[in-house]
Structure formats: C-alpha cells, structure tokens
C-alpha cells in the first residue's frame, strides 16, 4: 500500500469510486475482495480529453511492395485468426473479410506521379459513423479514438454506409478463435482502433508503426495531436500535410504528407 501513496490524486479518486460502487453493490462484498493497486498507472487513468491520438503518414516513405503494416495489424488484432469460409472466392473474401488497414497505390491524373499509402479509420473529430449509429455503439473516446462498442452494436451497418473512407468491416462469419486483447464476433462492425489496448497500457506506438519502423521505412508516426511537444505535432508543423476528403470538414486524426 505504501507505494500507492505516491500516485497522483486522480488515480486514488477513481480507485476509491470503484471501491465504493463495489461495496455499495452488496453489503457483504468485503470479506473476499481482492485488491490490486500496484499497477495503477495508465490503465487506471482511462482516456483523457487532454490528449488526442492521431497518426501522420508520410506517403513518400511508404514503400510500394511493402505490406508490413497490414500484416502487423492483422496479427495484433487477431484478424489473421479468421478462417476463410469454405468455397469462397478470392474477390468475395477480400470484400467480406475485415480490413482495418489497407494499402492503396495512386497515380495522379495530371502528372502521373505515383503515391503509396495505407488507409484506415481516420479517427475524425466529427465522425459520421458516430452520428448515424442508432444505438450509440459507435462512439468517440475522450482521447479522440473512434471505435465500436460491440456490446451494443446490432449490426445494422449504417455506419458503414456513412463512413467516407470505407474504413469499417462487418464480420460476415462465425469466429472460432480470438485473442484476449481483440474480441471479435459474427454480426458486429469493427474498425481500426489505434491499438487502443496498447495505448491504454501506456504504449506509445501502434502495431503498424512498429512494423513500419522495423522495416526501416518510418512512414507512420503515432502521437498526441494536442501536445505541441510531441514528435507528431512537431512533424506536422514542419511539413505541410493534408486530410483525405478535407472537403467534408471532419477534422481527421490521421494526416498524410506528400500526398
């Protein structure tokens, strides 16, 4: 308990509220309750509106034949555990399997310049998917991460109709195997959540960034858009960047340079 005294006040209050709720829930909780206050750092704080998580993608550095970010995302979020339904063709599988992140290759109509970039949920400040969700299962966390609470998702797919980036995936099949950190089940919608389980545990990178860095491209940079001292904010100040479909004024959390 002594180590706990050095923790910031905020954490204590949350701990205390949590305890009180539990205690009030039943008069006799106390005898067997287990307490864990030892690791109360990032995990206890929760999402804070002091930060806004975002990504900066330098499409100049994004290599054409590289698929590292996609593979890493699939591994991190258990997407690679999905089995293709028997007898399903390639094209339908590509159209129906979850793709949280995808590689796109572009050519400028005028100049012929070729650009490669990864596309994923753009984590808008004003997300259309959140506006249209009838049950408020699609929501934006205090720290700007847009995700689906699959406990209340009814699978209506209206968010997929509304998303300008085709970032969302519906689970079309039974799922036999999941990872602990990334639950997944038939009939719900999901999308990139900026590796929310890592961020909540205090990590400072996403799986896609790690993979990109490891391959030496460093095209993906994760960080706090609100913190002027973060590497992300500094990079954004130095180079001009743009949002995809800026005309919709959604103020995306994912920005692109050299696009």
């Amino acid at each position, binding site marked *: 308990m002594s180590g706990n005294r050095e923790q910031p006040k905020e954490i204590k209050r949350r701990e205390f509220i949590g305890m009180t709720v539990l205690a009030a829930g039943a008069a006799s909780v106390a005898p067997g309750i287990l307490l864990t206050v030892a690791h109360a750092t990032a995990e206890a704080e929760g999402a804070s509106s002091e930060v806004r998580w975002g990504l900066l993608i330098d499409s100049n550095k994004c290599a054409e034949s590289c698929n590292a970010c*996609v593979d890493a995302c699939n591994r991190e979020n258990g997407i690679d555990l999905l089995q293709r*339904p028997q007898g*399903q063709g390639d*094209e*339908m599988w*590509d*159209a*129906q399997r*979850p*793709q949280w992140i*995808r*590689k*796109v*290759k*572009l*050519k*400028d*109509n*005028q100049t012929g310049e*070729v*650009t490669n970039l990864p*596309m994923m949920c753009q984590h808008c400040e004003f997300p*259309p998917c*959140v*506006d*249209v*969700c*009838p*049950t*408020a*299962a699609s929501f934006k966390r205090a720290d700007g991460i847009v995700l689906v609470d699959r406990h*209340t*998702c*009814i*699978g*209506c*797919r*209206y968010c*997929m*109709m*509304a*998303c*300008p*980036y*085709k970032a*969302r*995936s*519906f*689970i*079309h*099949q*039974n799922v036999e195997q999941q990872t602990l950190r990334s639950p997944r089940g*038939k*009939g*719900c*919608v999901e999308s990139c959540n900026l590796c929310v389980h890592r961020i909540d545990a205090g990590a400072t990178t996403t799986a896609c960034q790690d993979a990109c860095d490891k391959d030496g491209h460093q095209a993906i940079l994760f960080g706090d858009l609100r913190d002027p001292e973060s590497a992300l904010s500094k990079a954004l100040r130095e180079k001009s960047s743009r949002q*995809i*479909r800026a005309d*919709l004024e959604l103020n995306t959390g994912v920005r692109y340079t050299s696009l």
Partner: protein
Amino acid sequence: MKKLHYSELWCSSPRYWGGLAALTFIILLGMAAAYYMEHSGHWVTGMSNQVVWGLPHVFAIFLIVAASGALNVASIGSVFGGPLYKPLGRFSGLLAIGLLAGGLVVLLLDLGRPERLIVAITHYNFKSIFAWNIILYTGFFTIVGIYLWAMIDRKAQKFYQVTGFAAFFWRLALTTGTGSIFGFLVAREAYDAAIMAPMFIIMSFSYGLAFFIITLMSAYWWASRELGSHRLEKLKNLLGVFVGAVLYFSLVYHLTNLYITQHHGIERFILLDGGVYTVMFWLGQITIGGIIPLFMLYSPAFSDNRFAIAIASVMVLIGGFVQIYVIVIGGQAFPMNLFPGKEVVSSSFFDGVVAAYTPSLAEGVLGLAGIAIAMTLVAVGARMLKVLPESLEDPEQGTA
C-alpha cells in the same frame, strides 16, 4: 346516399384459404432463409463490406415507403374530405399497418444481430436518423391503430378528425425520415441530396396507392363483392398523377446532380455506363414504372378496363422496386472518390472500382416473405375487422 355497411371479409371460398396458405408458405420459406443467413453469417449473402445494404434493404425500404403511402387514401377521406375515399379509409389504415410490419420484419431479420432488438429499443442516439425512425415506426403503428379504431368504433368517433390529422402528419414525418436515411449520407455522391426526402414522399404516394388498388381489387374479387367503376377510376387517375410526379422528381434529382461537376461521375454511372444499374434505371424505373403505366392509366383505349388498371398498378410497384434498388445498391456500387484528381492503381479493398453485388436466393426469399407478411396481415385483418364495405357500388349520380 345509401347507408354503408362494413363487414368482415367472410368467404369460405378456396380462393381465400388457398391464398392464405400460399402466403404462409412464402413466409415459412423466408424464415428459413433468415435463419440460414443468421446462422452462417452474412458471408452466404451477396452483401459485403462494399455493398453493405443489399436486397433485403431494398424490400424493406420499398415496403416502409409504400406503407406510409397506403395511408394516403384514408387521409384524403378524413383530412381533405373526399367523400368517395371515405369508405376506403379503414382498409387503407389496415394496409398501411400491414406493409410497415412486413418491411420492418425484413429489416430486423437482416441485422447482424437481430437478437439484440432490445438494445435498439433501449439505447438511443438521438443524432441518428435511424434511431428517430425507430420512434417514427412505433409511433406510426400506435397512431394508425387508434385512427383505425376511431374509424371503426362509433364510440371513438370523436377522435376521428384528430387522429386523422395526426396520422397524416406522422406519415409525412415517417417518409421524410426514411428518405433522410440516405439524404444525410454526405460521403456518398448518390445520396448527398436534400431532395431525397421529398422524393421519398412522392414515391410513397405512388407505391402506396398502387398497393392499395391491387389489394382492394383482390379483396373484392376474393369475397365476390361489388367494386364500382367510378370509384376505381378516381383511384386510377390519382395514381396517374403520382406516377407522373415521381417521374418529375427523378428528373429534377438527376438534373440537379448534372449541374454539380463533382456528381458527374455518379450521373454517368446511373444514366449511361453503369451496366445493370443503367438498364434498371431506364427499363425498370422509367419505362416499366413510369411511361407504360402512365399510358395505360390515361389512354382512352384502356379507360374501362379493370385488368389494365391492375397491370398498371403492378408495373408501378415493379418500377418502384427497381427505383429503390438503383438508389440503394447502385448508390453503393459506385466507388467513393477518396482521392480526387488521382487514379487508384491498386488496392486490396476495391478503391475506385465499381463494387460487385449479386443478390443471393436467401436475400430474395426473405424480402418476398416481407411482402407475404404484409399481405397476410391484411388478409387476416380484413377477415376479423370490419374494414371493407359490403358493397362499393358507385353512388348514384349527383350524390357524390
């Protein structure tokens, strides 16, 4: 004017029971299809992350839109005081309830998690048009139910005018809401238009009346009751006006889009080179759903031909269904323009490519079951409630 007598649709004929048996069979097939889709997951359908709303939604939206339109006949009777329409009011209310129920069943059974209906009822996001629609739909059932009661029960007659007006405005709100499901999707070029809501209202007038004419004619045929030509002619002429209005709104919608350079792509897709969607638009929506029925409804050659009226109504329904198909599926199939000024060379998720959609049998059967549910409800309702006048003879000259 002769006193009107309403009575239950009482017929022991094999026509009634045979019809009911056929409808039940279709419903059972539909339930089996829904179970298959939900049990295996949506991968067995033609829907994907590209075309997320498929054939079931076309059926559902078609029925919901038609439902509010079917109430129109009652509204003309009570709100606008049309004496020829008043005896038809009860049946119109019943048909509206039936069509809406059929549409909602299809919509529900196509959800990824239909068992979570309770979540949809208990968790509301008031910014969502969809959530509003859930309220609009339940409200529609309630209001039209009371309206129907006020029409049937003498003791409740004091509510007749009030509920008549309430139902009329509620149905306008409902169709506006249904149209707005698409109108507010800013991301997709085919949908991003304020005209969607009024267009859906005029579409509902047309489909609803077509449904009404067909069901009315079949009910009177089933029960061997008399249906006056004059009354039918009134309905027929009204349908003609609505069909013309739908054509006009389609014209305005496409002309507006043609004015906006950003929307040239989608217009080209629907009107010129969209393959199946272009064919459906010109052949289905415009020709079968518009021009031919207009000709059949107004041409003197068919003026006294009941068969022609029935055929024209069916064609309006087919054309309407195709119109919604083109809006819903065509609008999704057309690629969203994420990178203006750039061409997508490659993408693992079909960026910049027209999305493929081939509806599966299960989807179609589920959708048909929705229509069967609507018709069954109407058949059973007409059998149990006094909604249909014993005779719809034409009133004698001068009294109308």
